[in-house]
């Protein structure tokens, strides 16, 4: 018995040693250091940063550009899940329930659509960013502006007009995300028994009521999960903004996000201490979002 316990302990230790060590060294220790760095004036090149307490945090309260970035993240936090989920639900419904197939089947070719819609998901974000930089070119050489100009319209400054650029960023994010959620919701729908739809249809339910009375309530759990994933993506946005937009978050700061400001302050202004303080704030927002979603989803639970 004792020998068995010993063997068990040895096994646990052996199996956890590598993952825990790697994780402590490469993940936990840098995060802990980041908390400390946030309280220094470190500029990234000197050996001895000075401890300055909460000065960086006081400073960031007055940093207009950072707060602009925060509002952009907040906008994305609401809009990215909203658009993505609405579009994805719509297509998932068409593909699985409301199609023109027999009774309650998917639409013809639903498999083809599902495969194609997923394409953007397999492309690296950096690649998508460079691709759309070209798609959005401001003149006749741009994929979108060429037809507009052919119709006699003025070209749109997708990335150069500060009133439009944010929407272009949002559009690309939605473009890339939708496919995954179509597949996710489709899987959710597939697990709903077919006879439920058929029964409702026999009762004369139209597509709309089919959607709102059966599909949505049964998928509600999945939708919530989707909202949380997309929310975290919205808080973490970086590569699209940094690679695609003019002036890395411009023009005129109209697309900048928290991650971009952290990167800019660290690797362009060499204010590593300050950037770490921004990182801590971003971290607090992420945790806040997590707690909030937890609370909200829990309440939903109770109402059921």
């Amino acid at each position, binding site marked *: 018995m004792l020998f068995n316990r010993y063997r068990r302990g040895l096994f646990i230790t052996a199996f956890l040693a590598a993952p825990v060590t790697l994780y402590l060294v490469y993940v936990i220790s840098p995060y802990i250091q980041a908390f400390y760095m946030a309280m220094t004036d470190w500029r990234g090149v*000197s050996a001895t940063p000075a401890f300055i307490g909460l000065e960086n945090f006081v400073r960031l309260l007055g940093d207009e550009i950072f707060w602009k970035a925060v509002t952009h993240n907040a906008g994305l936090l609401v809009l990215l899940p909203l658009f993505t989920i609405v579009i994805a639900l719509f297509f998932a419904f068409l593909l699985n329930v409301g199609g023109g197939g027999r009774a309650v089947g998917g639409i013809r070719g639903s498999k083809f659509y599902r495969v194609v819609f997923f394409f953007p998901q397999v492309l690296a974000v950096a690649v998508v960013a460079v691709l759309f930089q070209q798609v959005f070119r401001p003149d006749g050489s741009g994929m979108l502006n060429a037809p507009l100009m052919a119709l006699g319209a003025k070209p749109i400054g997708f990335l150069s007009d500060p009133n439009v650029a944010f929407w272009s960023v949002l559009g690309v994010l939605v473009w890339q995300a939708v496919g995954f959620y179509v597949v996710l919701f489709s899987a959710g729908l597939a697990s709903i028994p077919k006879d439920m739809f058929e029964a409702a249809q026999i009762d004369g339910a139209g597509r709309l009521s089919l959607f709102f009375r059966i599909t949505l309530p049964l998928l509600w759990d999945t939708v919530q999960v989707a909202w949380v994933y997309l929310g975290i993506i919205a808080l973490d946005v*970086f590569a699209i903004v940094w690679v695609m937009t003019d002036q890395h978050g411009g023009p005129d700061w109209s697309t900048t996000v928290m991650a971009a400001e952290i990167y800019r302050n660290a690797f362009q202004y*060499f204010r590593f201490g300050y950037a770490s303080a921004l990182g801590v704030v971003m971290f607090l927002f992420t945790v806040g979002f997590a*707690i909030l979603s937890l609370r909200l989803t829990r309440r939903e639970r109770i109402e059921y």
Partner: protein
Amino acid sequence: MPNTPRITRRELLRSAALVPMAGALAACATPAAKPSASSAAPVATSAANPFGVSDSKPLEVWIFDGGFGQDYAKNIHQPLFKSKYPKVEIKHNATKEITKVLQPRFAGGNPPDVIDNSGANAMDFGALAQDGQLQDLTPLLDAPSWDDPGTKVRDTIDQAVIDIGTYDGTFSVLGYVNYIFGIWYSQKAFKDNGWVPPKTWDEFLKLNETIKKSGKMAPFTYAGKFPQYLYEVLLTMAAKIGGNEVLVNIDNLEDGAWKSEAMKTSATAWAEIGAKYLMEGTAGLDHVQTQTAQNKYKVAMLPSGSWLENEQKTTTPPDFEYGMFPVPDFTSSDKMPYGTLHSQPSENFIVPAKGANPQGGMEYLRAMLSKKASGDFSEMVKTVSTVKGAGEGRQLSPGAASATTAYTAAGANIVYYRWQTWYAQLKDEAIAATGQLMTGGLTPDKYLERLQKKADEIKNDSSIKKYKR
């Protein structure tokens, strides 16, 4: 990982709420910087080898691979260095992203030995200087020149190089090229259409109008994605109107410096160009796209610097003939005369103090400053070196010739500014706001107010090191 499709569930959320506790456990941990490992036995110095270059230490060189490319370093500078130190191994590297690639090397205490710290993504000299990362280049100035043991290096280069390369009283940045800024055009296009480079602002406006009416091409453009190309002429014109102190005050973060009368006049004037005469789509195009449009005769004029001709060499038609004219007189009562130019030593070379081979680094710079190296360089990349007389007897291309003529004509009427290298945040704000000024998103007053506000913020921020000139 930010790009991973994030998957999470309630449990995750709950655990995330616990994380601050982990943070509370945070122990002190500071980034440890290693002392540099450059303590090999020193090599005796001599007149021929003034810094004591050691044959056994390799020399790592990083070149900004931008408008001038990197061939000049490989084919001119390095062979010359090698001819004297055949045993020294040169490790040549080039990048367009100096900061991204080299900043971590500094942070890690093992920077390379020579860096051409240039381009849009250059490292912040202020931060490097503040941390003692830059080798004091005074010994280089006092060393005998490569060509003549009787002449000091100091006497072979323009004084502006020493002024501008001095940080905290220490000469530590060597500008190798004289950037000469102005408004560039095609001499052929102007000749064919009977257009004449304007000398006054009124003439300039009229010319814009004429070109616009002709329907042959758009009158004016600038690299809309990089509005620093535009504030460059805006500031030069302000200096012309109000005198050099306009720029000095801005550099010194004086109260209200941005809102001076001269700045207001200049900003208003350029905003009018932005409203009336810009090529369509300018705001979304970068320097190459606008410059290529000019090569295709789609636009007549754009502000740029003396690197332009080399940068565009592959798309320029053979008979294009680049020309450059200085910022026109605004009124006859401008403080500075016609022909005043913005010129600034650039293509900045540094020797990291904590590199493995600073002696080799300085010697490399000394080789670069030789008559042969600088002359071959000027010819190869069609530009004006900061080495005195480097272009003498050389075959200059039309654009370089035009810029050199303007430079000679300007004489002492040269202006420059340094705030954009000193205060990177102010530069980014100026870039953002200038774009808005030109597209009508900001009135000239609001524009200057914004920049003044940013300048004041920087002035009041104790964490940012201040400079004076």
